[in-house]
């Protein structure tokens, strides 16, 4: 167990280092998120009746595009020079490889989401406070779900030529329940509704994340074989 976690962390560190050196991918991710926030800011009117609903949609669209790029990238570096084979030759549990890749995707998608949220906060005049922190927590739950589903899907599509398009087709339908939960939470957190409007949505999202992480952990071995 301890060795597996150490292996997973070694893989995560390697992914973070590789991606940060290929800076263009990280910059593209963040710029894409900023662009979505900016473009939608021209068409949404602050203080309008449906403002919280519209802003919620903008936030998750701006989070999702760079997030999908992040999970897609997680197997790009492994495909270069067939490094995935080199990884599979090592005496490392397949579950640890999945966990390492998942953590890397989670850190990248959450970090880009965090930057997008700051930009969103400034542009849409969102108040800072407990609700903002709660919004960050919801973003973490979405990032974890995206990383869990995306890592497994990226492994499935790693050997396919049109993997970018296929990854989106595979991931988005699976993310629908999570995105519904995220949208419900953010409507409450961005609008005047009281906290109890959140209901059990955060719990539902956490269960979704754990469930898909467990499924990915079990299925990863079959996928890479």
């Amino acid at each position: 167990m301890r060795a597996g976690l150490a292996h997973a962390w070694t893989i995560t560190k390697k992914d973070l280092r590789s991606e940060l050196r290929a800076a263009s991918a990280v910059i593209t991710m963040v710029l894409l998120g900023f662009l979505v926030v900016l473009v939608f800011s021209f068409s949404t009117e602050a203080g309008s009746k449906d403002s919280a609903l519209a802003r919620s949609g903008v936030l998750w669209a701006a989070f999702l595009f760079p997030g999908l790029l992040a999970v897609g990238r997680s197997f790009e570096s492994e495909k270069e020079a067939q490094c995935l084979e080199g990884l599979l030759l090592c005496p490392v549990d397949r579950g640890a490889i999945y966990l390492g890749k998942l953590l890397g995707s989670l850190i990248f998608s959450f970090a880009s989401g965090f930057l997008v949220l700051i930009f969103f906060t400034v542009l849409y005049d969102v108040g800072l406070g407990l609700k903002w922190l709660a919004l960050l927590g919801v973003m973490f739950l979405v990032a974890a779900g995206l990383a869990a589903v995306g890592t497994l899907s990226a492994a499935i599509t790693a050997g396919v030529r049109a993997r970018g398009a296929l990854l989106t087709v595979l991931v988005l339908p699976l993310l629908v329940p999570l995105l519904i939960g995220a949208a419900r939470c953010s409507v409450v957190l961005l609008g005047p509704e009281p906290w109890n409007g959140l209901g059990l949505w955060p719990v539902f999202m956490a269960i979704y994340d754990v469930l898909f992480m467990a499924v990915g952990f079990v299925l990863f071995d079959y996928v890479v074989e």
Partner: protein
Amino acid sequence: MPAVEAKGIGFSFGPLRVLRGVTLSVERGSVLTVFGPNGAGKTTLLKILAGLLRPSAGAVRVEGVELSEDPAAFRKLIGVISHYPYLYPQLTGRENLEFYARLYGLRQPKTDARDMLETMGLSSAMNRQVSGYSRGMLQRLAVGRALLHGPRVLLLDEPFTGLDHEARENLTALLRTLRSDDRTVLMTTHDLDGGLDLADRVAVLSGGSLVVDLPAAGLDPAGFLALYDEAVAKGRALATGGQARERGRVGERGRS
């Protein structure tokens, strides 16, 4: 006990039978070269021996260990040098070896990586990103990666492809050293000169069947070339016959 033992290995991609009951054994401290034309199944055989692919039939033992019994012990026994270096272009040579050293559970990953870089003559380039390495440097680093954990068995897939004369000579010298160090080498190639030069035994894989397996002593390149052509034709005939029999069986099933 042989270092590598494969019994009745079969492998199919859907209806295509790539390997048909391949049986081979390699004695400890010896070199077996498996020759064969393109598409003979050499890379598939090597991937099965390395534990990257599961065979449809048969079993593989390395130093008496079967993959399903103890995957980690099996993988620690093997080092693989492929067409691909398995190195991350954005990482430096040192970072690449340290990464693999950690995954192989070496006690001193930093020291072991540094020592291996020195052995491979790459000390001066160890802090450069691998994307800036020449083909020869990449090959040396790939060999270093494969030997880092001290594997007892080395599997090489077309190791001479794309190497210049000097890099070829260096690789040949290294493989000789490994043999004298009691390590076992199994190499697949269609390079007759390079493959024959090192081998203790030679085998020919054609049409998914191992049609020749004999000692290399006394074989000269010209004589082996004639034998090789004959063996390739025999393997192809076996594969074609097998397919025809298979089609016949399907036809009979269709009529009944």
